[in-house]
Each structure stands twice: as structure tokens, then as C-alpha cells.
């Protein structure tokens, strides 16, 4: 069992659009040290950070990542291709992105989009999480552990220790983590998958994943 506290895991959120500030705010509330970065000068997002994410620190992406243990990717997937994989080497990377062919264009994706992310980031541990609940719901539906109306959120990855760390993060920000054994299995979390966009309890979530497996078998 891990005894790590949130303070042991410094988080860098890359992306200050719809999704990034919501994840950053939830992580600050859960006790994590949080830095947030957009594509440019941190001054450009200083006001956003001060008002929407009090407690987080706006930084240049490279600086935020260098000091972080966990890096959350909350940028359009087509912009991910501009991120230098070397920057993320050795980091635990949360892929909160989704593949939208209409806006991302055709990307070289076979299997799960997170597998493409992981192939590009071969020096990092990649975990798929926080992508399947809409950004405007992510905060409203968060509940403390044990609440009767608490919902589930999926955590998928190939490295069990990395999955465990992110499951703890998901738990602390307000969701029952449902662990999926591989990035490939994380396909159920993608657009078109059985839990995408749905805000389900843990039994409903597990049922939806099981039904999906049966229908594919």
C-alpha cells in the first residue's frame, strides 16, 4: 500500500483551455502542488490562474514539467504532436486527451489513442484518465469518498504502480477509480466507448465495461 500524500506528487497541467483549469482546480483542492502552463508566456494566463485556479502557479510549460512528478496533458490531441517527448521523459503522464477526427485531422492511431501517445512518449509512464467526463461535469459531480452519489472514473495503464498513483489522484479529486489493466483496455474510455460522456456509479461503470466486452467477444 502506498502511503504517499498529495504533497509528494507535484502536478503540472499542460493546457489552460476548457479542461486544464478544471483539473488543476480539483487537484489544488485535493492538496496537490499544481502548476499550469499554456503554449506561451505564463503572464498570459496569470489572471486566469489567480481567479479560476487560486493556489496553482502559472509557469512556462518546460519549467512546470521539469519540477513535476505527474504531468496532465489537457491539450488538443493534434497539439500533442508539437510537444517534445524529451521534456516528458521519466514523468508519469496522464493522457486526458481525446481523439476528435473532425478537429484533429487524421492522426496515426491504431488501437487506443493513448497507445499512440505512449509510443511517442517511450521514456514516460502513460496513464489514460480524466478524459471521459465532460469538463463542465467533472467538477460538479465530484464527491468525497464514501458519498452515496459518488461516481466512477476510469484509470487505464500498462504500469500498475503508475495506475495506482493516478487512481489515488482520481479518488482524491472526487471519483471512485476503476482500474483498467492496460492502455488498450482504456479504449472503453474513448469517444464512442460505453462510458464516454456518461457519469456512472462504480457498479454501473463496471457493468457497462463488462457488457461492452461481452458484445465484442
Amino acid at each position, binding site marked *: 500500500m502506498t502511503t504517499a500524500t498529495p504533497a509528494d506528487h507535484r502536478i503540472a497541467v499542460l493546457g489552460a483551455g476548457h479542461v486544464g483549469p478544471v483539473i488543476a482546480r480539483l487537484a489544488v483542492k485535493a492538496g496537490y502542488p499544481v502548476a499550469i502552463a499554456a503554449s506561451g508566456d505564463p503572464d498570459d494566463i496569470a489572471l486566469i490562474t489567480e481567479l479560476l485556479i487560486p493556489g496553482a502557479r502559472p509557469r512556462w510549460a518546460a519549467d512546470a514539467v521539469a519540477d513535476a512528478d505527474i504531468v496532465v496533458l489537457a491539450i488538443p490531441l493534434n497539439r500533442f504532436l508539437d510537444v517534445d517527448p524529451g521534456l516528458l521523459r521519466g514523468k508519469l503522464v496522464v493522457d486526458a486527451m481525446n481523439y476528435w477526427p473532425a*478537429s484533429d485531422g487524421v492522426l496515426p492511431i491504431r488501437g487506443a489513442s493513448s497507445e499512440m501517445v505512449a509510443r511517442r512518449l517511450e521514456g514516460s509512464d502513460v496513464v489514460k484518465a480524466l478524459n471521459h467526463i465532460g469538463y463542465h461535469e467533472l467538477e*460538479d459531480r465530484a464527491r468525497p469518498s464514501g458519498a452515496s452519489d459518488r461516481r466512477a472514473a476510469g484509470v487505464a495503464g500498462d504500469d500498475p504502480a503508475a495506475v495506482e498513483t493516478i487512481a489515488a489522484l482520481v479518488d482524491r479529486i472526487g471519483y471512485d477509480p476503476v482500474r483498467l489493466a492496460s492502455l488498450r483496455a482504456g479504449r472503453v474510455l474513448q469517444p464512442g466507448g460505453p462510458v464516454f460522456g456518461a457519469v456512472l456509479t462504480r457498479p454501473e461503470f463496471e457493468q457497462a465495461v463488462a457488457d461492452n466486452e461481452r458484445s465484442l467477444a
Partner: protein
Amino acid sequence: MTYTFGLDTFGDRNAAADGAPLSHAQTIRNVAEEGVFAEQAGVDFFGIGEHHTGYFPMPAGDVVLAAIAARTQTIRLGSAVTVLSSDDPVRVFQRYSTLNALSGGRAEVILGRGSSIESFPLFGYDLADYEELFEEKAALFAELLRGGPVTWDGKTRPPLLNQDVVPHLESGPFPAWIGVGGNPQSVIRAARLGFGLALAIIGGPPARFAAYSQLFRQALEKFGRPPLPVLVHSPGHVAATDEQAKAEFWPRWREIISVMAAERGFAIPTEESFDRETGPDGALYVGSPETVAQKIATNLRALDATRFDLKYGMPGLTHDQLMTAIELYGQQVIPRARELLS
């Protein structure tokens, strides 16, 4: 505090009483009737949003607004929204300054980056560029609105060198807003370029947008700009009772959102989610005049906003249902909301 109240439509394709869809042409003629009737009912603003689909056959709303302008005297008329990223800011300015001329200074425009995306492939734009397209074009539009010759150079259209763009504005810039769906960087942009902030709230608790209007005010201050207004745009439907409004709206909402959900991957609405959205903490203004007025007043206060635009209608509703909704909105919802806010 002066509050204004508008109605927006996306040219939602009407149905006949038996549910059969009306033609695009008849729907467009009906929208013109609805705009004229909105003025008679006491509505302050009538907006038409650009769309390019069979459910929303409304790519040239400015033409319809011109027809409404010719038959009205006081109602303000504008886009809600113009997808500026896939348009030419010079052409948008020309169309709306023409509308402004025709209507005696009643034109407005709400500029959108592109939450509705059909126009990108249609006009040969790459959706992946929508941020760059919008940033550049919104900045050029702000220049054009100032009046006088424009010199401009960028990547998204040919340069302009001391270009006189006509028709000239008769009495200064017309009101222009940027539509924002939840990206805080878009809020900052509206403040930086000097546009009003139009918050499109279509799901979840509206109160969470209060931070955006605070962000907007502080950003205006930071950029040394005078205060600019905040408007709230949300979907809804008004009928005599809550039950009737919900019964008319729900099947149409379910159908449209289900189609969008399949295309864009969000959740298919359930009766539970619909009840939540039509309840006091949701984003849909569906109900009796009293219910809708209460919700408008509460949220304008919570969001420190001075204008509310109800996006009325939904594909599959009848023209008669829409005319009733407009009448109730103008004659009952607006006066009641004003009373609650005073």
C-alpha cells in the same frame, strides 16, 4: 441597472402540426415572421445563429435579419453567432454594417470561434487551425469596427493597405460580442480586443460561469479598457405551464442532442439529465413564464450580466408553438424578470 432581453434562433427547422418537417424555405420565412412578431411582443433583440445543416438551414442569417429590419422599427438585430473563423472579417463587417444602415443603427454581431463546425470543410478551412483563424480575424474585425482606413497584415487573408472598407458606419461602432463556451482564454481575448462577453451556457449549473464574468471585468481593467457588458445565451422554451413546455421540448431536445452526441461524443440526454437541466441549477430555461423569469433573474444576478438571450425553438417544434413561446416571453417573462431584478 438596465437589463435587455433577446431571442435567438438557429433557424431550427419547423414541423407541421402532424410532425412532418417543413421545407427549409418555409422555415426561413417563418423565422422572419418570428423576428417581426418578437418586436410586437416586446423583445429587445432578435439574433440568428449561423448553421449549415438540415436541422438548422440557416447559413445566411443576415439576409433574414434584413427582411426583419424592413418590417420593424425598434428591435435590435444581430448574429448569434457568426462563425468568424470560417468567414472573411471584411465581408462580415460589410454585411452587418449594411444591416446597420438599413435598420437605422440596430445591428449587432456576436462572433464565434466555431462550436458549430460544419462551415470549416464547407469553405475550405482546417478545423485544426480554428484558434489561429479566430484570433487573427477577431483582431481584424475590431479594427474594422473602429472605422476609417485599415492597414492589416496576417496569415488568414490577403493584407490590407490603408483600405477604405464600405459602407462607413453612420454613428460609430455597433455592439459586438465574442461568444464563449467555457474557455477562459476566450474570455481574456474578448477583453483584450474590446468586445462584450457573450456566455453560451448550454449545460450544467450556470453559476459556475460567475468566475468568467469576474475574469472578464478584471481583464478589462488590466488592459485599460472601460467596462463592457456580459450577456448570457441559453436554450429554452416557454409555454403556459411547466408540464406543457417540457412535454413539447423534451422529445425535440432528446432527438437533436442524441444526433450531436453521436457526432461529437457527449452523453445522450436522459429524462434524469433533462430534469436536472430544467431545474433551478440547470442550463435550460424550459417552463412557464414564471419559472423561466425566476431563473433568468437569478442567473443574471449570479453572473453579474445585464442581458439574457433565450435561444428559443428546437427542430421539430411547430411555428405556432414558437409564436406562442415568443408571445409569452415578450409579454410575461421579460416584464416579470425586470420586476424581479429591480
